[in-house]
């Protein structure tokens, strides 16, 4: 038996550590640990709720926008404060821009090289690669010349003494199975994707006044002054800049990202049988289309034990079952306290031991819903929508599974989505949906302003005594909730239950593992020294772990240590 410990930044505190015991070529037990204290919410106690979002968006450097949004929504929920329709739509466009940026970066720049073998690219025939690309989509950026150019760059880099960004990949690993031409095609799109993730980020920058760390939010709406004809406001010029960007991003998502994700899934169909893990799914509704946030373009719900037919909708932040159902358990986390606590009563009192396999081993608390671990993220999003016959979810899921089945040469149905590959594919499906909604929400915003509505902000007022609220956002990595208690206009408690806490949660009081841990069990490992398969499953969740500490380490890092037990 071997024990693999993936601790990518061993000299820096604050990251995801994965431990896995491998027995007979498969993972038999796994632990997910966050190695840094995450009690960053405590900095918000005693503050003005109207400025909490400015701090909340510094919780995390990668998902700044999502914390800002959940924070203002939490305070609005506590005050039962409606938001003008213009503000909802502007926020939605920001959230869509952010999510598309994030999903494109995840697929191409953070995880594609788990599946794409750069070392095979010199053997590819660029003309054949272009022909394969043409069979997948009408994208104009797939010419043989374009492929040849990228192949040239790779060949030059592989021949140089420094491999640069490709220095540490698991090239030639037995789990790499794409034809050389498909590797070249994917890497060509890796470079093209740089431009489109930037365009998605520009949508956020124009509406949010700045990225990262948007400036336009306020409890009660947005601070964008709206006037079609004024130079200093959100005017027609700016709105058409956004439309131009959306019109460039949408074809990239529909003609490049989705077909690429389907192609990789079709060439690796065995990964539809690996990494299922926790089969309870949770997603909250998002993209509200009215001021009260009573109707949404993306549905929420929960599915238990993988039974899509038993889906229960979640209707919004006022959903009684949701407000009551979420608790956090610290039995195996480095905090004091016993038994599960509701976030409004949540405490964050550190109690560090060391890494104990059967005791405490993580700074992440274990969120549970009705006592059960839940998987969150694009897969939960897609399954919850599919199970509720949501038309847009069905359209793009069926489209994607049709493409995958064609390439794999056998039918792959929605039942196979509860897997490592299902998580990758769901992110592309969700992106395709969001791309379509981007145009739709832009049109609604312009329509509403055209009707003469230029309001974007309602003034909040704080009651005497205590009020509680929860702000929800279905973020790129899944369900995000900020829980606030406001006493006499001041924050007395603030808890953020973030997507990666759901997915990377340690075991709970009853010993039930979290989604990362459960999904790793059974994952095959061909070579314990090169645990590529573990990274594929961990990356499928798009971990966003150390929502905080970042210090450059010029002395280098190690990725995996392997101990034979």
């Amino acid at each position, binding site marked *: 038996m071997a024990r693999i410990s*993936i601790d*990518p*930044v061993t000299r*820096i505190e604050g*990251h*995801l550590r*994965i431990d896995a015991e491998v027995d007979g070529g498969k993972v038999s037990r796994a632990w997910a640990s966050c190695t840094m*204290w995450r*009690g*960053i919410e*405590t*900095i918000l106690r005693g503050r003005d709720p109207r*400025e909490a979002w400015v*701090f909340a968006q*510094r*919780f*995390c*450097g*990668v998902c*700044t926008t999502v914390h800002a949004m959940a924070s203002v929504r939490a305070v609005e929920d506590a005050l039962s404060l409606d938001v003008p329709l213009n503000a909802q739509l502007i926020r939605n466009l920001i959230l869509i821009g952010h999510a598309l*940026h994030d999903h494109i*970066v*995840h697929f191409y*720049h*953070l995880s594609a*090289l*788990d599946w794409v073998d750069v070392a095979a690219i010199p053997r590819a025939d660029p003309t054949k690669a272009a022909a394969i690309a043409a069979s997948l989509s009408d994208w104009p950026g797939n010419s043989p010349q374009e492929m040849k150019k990228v192949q040239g*760059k790779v060949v030059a880099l592989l021949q140089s003494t*420094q491999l*640069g*960004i490709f220095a*540490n990949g*698991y090239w030639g690993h037995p789990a790499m199975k794409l034809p050389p031409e498909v590797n070249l095609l994917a890497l060509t799109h890796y*470079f093209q994707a*740089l431009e489109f*993730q*930037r365009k998605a*980020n520009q949508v956020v920058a124009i509406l949010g006044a700045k990225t*990262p*760390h948007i400036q336009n939010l306020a409890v009660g709406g947005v601070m964008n002054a709206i006037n079609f004809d004024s130079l200093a406001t959100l005017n027609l010029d700016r709105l058409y800049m956004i439309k131009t960007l959306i019109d460039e991003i949408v074809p990239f998502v529909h003609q490049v990202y989705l077909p690429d994700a389907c192609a990789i899934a079709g060439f690796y169909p065995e990964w539809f049988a690996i990494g299922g893990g926790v089969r309870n799914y949770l997603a909250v509704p998002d993209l509200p289309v009215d001021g009260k946030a009573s109707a949404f373009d993306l549905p929420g719900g929960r599915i238990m034990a993988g039974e899509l037919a038993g889906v229960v909708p979640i209707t919004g932040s006022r959903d009684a079952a949701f407000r009551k159902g979420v608790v956090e358990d610290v039995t195996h986390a480095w905090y004091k306290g016993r038994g599960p606590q509701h976030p409004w009563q949540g405490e964050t009192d550190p109690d560090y031991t060391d890494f104990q396999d059967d005791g405490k081993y993580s700074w992440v608390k274990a969120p549970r819903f009705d006592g059960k671990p839940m998987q969150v993220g694009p897969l939960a999003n897609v399954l919850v929508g599919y199970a509720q016959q949501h038309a847009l979810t069905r359209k793009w899921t069926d489209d994607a599974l049709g493409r995958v089945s064609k390439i794999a040469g056998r039918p792959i149905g929605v039942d196979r989505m509860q897997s490592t590959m299902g998580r990758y594919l769901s992110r592309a499906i969700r992106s395709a949906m969001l791309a379509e909604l981007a145009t739709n929400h832009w049109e609604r915003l312009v329509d509403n302003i055209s009707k003469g509505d230029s309001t974007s902000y309602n003034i909040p007022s704080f009651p005497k005594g205590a009020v509680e609220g929860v702000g929800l956002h279905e973020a790129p990595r899944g369900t995000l909730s900020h829980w606030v208690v406001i006493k006499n206009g001041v924050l007395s408690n603030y808890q953020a239950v973030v997507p990666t806490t759901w997915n990377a949660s340690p075991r709970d009081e009853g010993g039930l593992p979290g989604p990362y841990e459960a999904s790793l069990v059974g994952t095959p490992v061909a070579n314990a020294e090169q645990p590529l398969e573990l*990274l594929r499953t*961990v*990356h499928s969740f*798009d*971990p*966003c*772990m*150390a929502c*905080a*500490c*970042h*210090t*450059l*380490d*010029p*002395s*280098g*890092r*190690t*990725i995996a240590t392997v101990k034979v037990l």
Partner: protein
Amino acid sequence: MNLAVIGLGNVLLGDDGFGPFVVELLRTRYVFPPEVELLDLGTPGLGLITYLHGHDAVVIVDAVTGAGNPGDVRVYEGAELERLPIAPRVSPHDPAVSEALGVARLAGTGPIDVCLVGAVPGSRELGAGLSPRARAAADAAAEIVRRRVEERGFAIRSRDADPLEQNWWVRSCS
């Protein structure tokens, strides 16, 4: 030619906020020409690539470990940064300066002239504001950045008013 001064780090974690602090210090002390952008990027991980685009030169300011005692300031040139080993990343948070530079170079859209001005952090505990040593290092780093920007032909003017000594995250946390 244009240039960006990029501050990296988390302002809620003590000396980890060194980079953004230096950027704010420069903003309050000097007026830069429009070709020079000052960017507080927080902790973008690989998202740094997005902001490298379109700049001929960048000066990154960050906290660095393993380089000496708290408050020590070190300057790394671009080639040195790109030689740092890159490991497969688990989370998008893993510091990604060398990887982002490598991707930008390969894509042909990145800056040609790169350096990083780093300070060794003392405390990285939860809380806003710098330790006294890091605060002293911030002055030294700001001076290094100012000189580097001027050497590239940009005219910098000192502000007349007293510089704002504290940033928003320090002011509202003290």
